[in-house]
């Protein structure tokens, strides 16, 4: 039913704020693109120059992208990041799904407290945690290898995955599993054949989130890796393309842009599952 005057109200209170929101969210990406394709001559033009035009360029160039790919180890960083993110995600998912299931279903004495404790570990800031972790990594002699990150990222990914999956498992009716167990399935079979297939949206969301977090992670990667050929994209780009006080803006932005593509692809591919997983809706 359309009420008189509802149309402009909808514009004022819905479309306008929504538009502003979208603009604010997408502007950084636009800025990255423009800066990537802007020639150096334009890039370092002072603001009072008659041809100063920060929001567009008339001579687009791929010079910076070429520099990034040929002059730096960007391809290696991409591969490093991909490998580390995938491995850390896999470990965290396996642990998180199993732990989440246990916390959601098994009623043992300390289940509640244990669940909270796991969540609290997620709240410990990484900026504090990297100090003791650095010690451990040194003791195990895995500094400056991908394993330094693959084994430390789960410290914050597992609590996150566990909590997300716990909520998701709790939303799945207990009867499904009970029915399966009466039907002749052992607990692990009920888990494997009934609960996990239903929990796929939740598992995917946890996976996507874990992947994104490890892909973007900065501080552990900065501290635990030192040689350029071991670095991940966020650290590699910022450490190799900022030399002293010289910022190679074009290549920096090209690196940021290309570096965000895999995450964008992962998101767009699973967006429907992701929304279902986070909002916890189960189609029955």
């Amino acid at each position, binding site marked *: 039913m359309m009420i008189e005057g509802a149309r402009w109200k909808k514009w004022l209170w819905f479309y306008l704020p929504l538009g502003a929101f979208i603009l604010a969210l997408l502007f950084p990406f636009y800025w990255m693109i423009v800066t990537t394709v802007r020639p150096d001559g334009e890039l370092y033009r002072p603001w009072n120059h008659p041809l100063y035009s920060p929001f567009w360029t008339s001579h687009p160039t791929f010079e910076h992208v070429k520099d990034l790919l040929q002059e730096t180890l960007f391809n290696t960083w991409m591969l490093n990041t991909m490998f580390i993110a995938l491995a850390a995600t896999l470990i965290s998912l396996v642990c998180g799904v199993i732990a989440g299931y246990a916390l959601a279903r098994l009623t043992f004495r300390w289940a509640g407290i244990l669940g909270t404790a796991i969540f609290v570990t997620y709240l410990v800031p990484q900026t504090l945690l990297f100090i003791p972790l650095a010690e451990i990594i040194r003791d195990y002699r895995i500094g400056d290898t991908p394993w330094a990150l693959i084994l430390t990222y789960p410290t914050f990914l597992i609590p996150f995955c566990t909590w997300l999956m716990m909520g998701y498992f709790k939303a799945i009716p207990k009867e499904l599993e*009970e029915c399966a167990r009466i*039907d002749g399935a052992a607990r692990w079979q009920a888990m494997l054949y009934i609960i996990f297939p239903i929990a796929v949206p939740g598992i995917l969301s946890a996976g996507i989130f874990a992947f994104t977090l490890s892909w973007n992670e900065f501080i552990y990667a900065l501290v635990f890796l030192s040689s350029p050929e071991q670095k991940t994209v966020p650290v590699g780009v910022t450490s190799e393309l900022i030399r002293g006080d010289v910022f190679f803006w074009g290549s920096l932005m090209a690196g940021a842009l290309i570096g965000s593509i895999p995450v964008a692809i992962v998101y767009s591919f699973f967006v429907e599952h992701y929304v279902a997983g986070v909002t916890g809706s189960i*189609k029955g």
Partner: protein
Amino acid sequence: MARVLLKQLNKKFDGTHAVKDVNLEIRDHEFVVLVGPSGCGKTTTLRMVAGLEDITSGEVSIDGRVVNNLAPMDRDIAMVFQNYALYPHMSVYQNMAFGLRMRKFDKPEIDRRVKHAAEVLGIQVLLDRRPRQLSGGQRQRVALGRAIVRNPRVFLFDEPLSNLDAGLRVQMRVELKRLHDRLETTAIYVTHDQVEAMTLGDRVVVMRDGMVQQEGAPLQLYEHPANRFVAGFIGSPAMNFIAVTIAASGDALWAEAPGLRVRVPPHKTQALRRYSGQRVILGLRPETLRPASSGASGDYAFDATVEVVEPLGSEILLDTRVGESPVVARVDPSVRASAHQRLRLAFEPERAHFFDAVAEAAI
């Protein structure tokens, strides 16, 4: 086929004693209904039989074998849940085949059994659908199908009709009964609906606060309730309860309350004599009441004021007031009555019940 025996069964959750000393024998092929208000322990009892709930103390045995420590899958039972618990990611066929697959039946046998069960339940055309594409009644049928393909020794039903709308519920009730006659399996059925209990059960077990109040054939419970709770729970509209005082006058006993003085029927006189001068509860079923001519005196009649008239077509419910007690009478549709009218109601003395006012047991 199987005989299920519950011996001194107890269940304690932290702080609550949900099931107290339940003793029950369910004979081979028998359809036993556990009925009671929510929280009475009926579902917990059923879940202990299924093996989904640990047994605090006591024993459950199936065919003479104690199953307390047996996993649900090893008890050879099937259970139908209130929310159907269909596996949402599987088709109807896969849902029904799951139990057989888990038990390593070979493919042709699975196919034969699923098709047969689908035919029995009239759901052959639904086999490729997913549960979310089915209506409530269809889901119910699939849940039943999943239970019957396995040919279990005992069927357990946990309020299977509660999620259906009224019309469908009646239809499925009849179908369940027919199915049970055909399959000849032992069945334990839990419900809070006394109509379901009465119509389905060979035997009905009424529970309250974790304890069995009475067990027996449906009509036996109806005609001879063991206590006031069973009397009020079984039957709709419920039995009328009037608090009366027993007064002796010569050989006869009279039950008195404000606005009411009726004679205690002869077959109860002996038992009620020791209550002389004390308060007891008089219980009258609505259908044992009928209008009497207003002037007629009588030992088994009293005056009532009609408050609401509910014509149901096949009968009329008169909501009346006798002194301070509300009394519902279920009368012939030919009776003409209107609100605020005074009416004399007579009751069948041989169907009057008396209950102890404190212990609530039948006298």
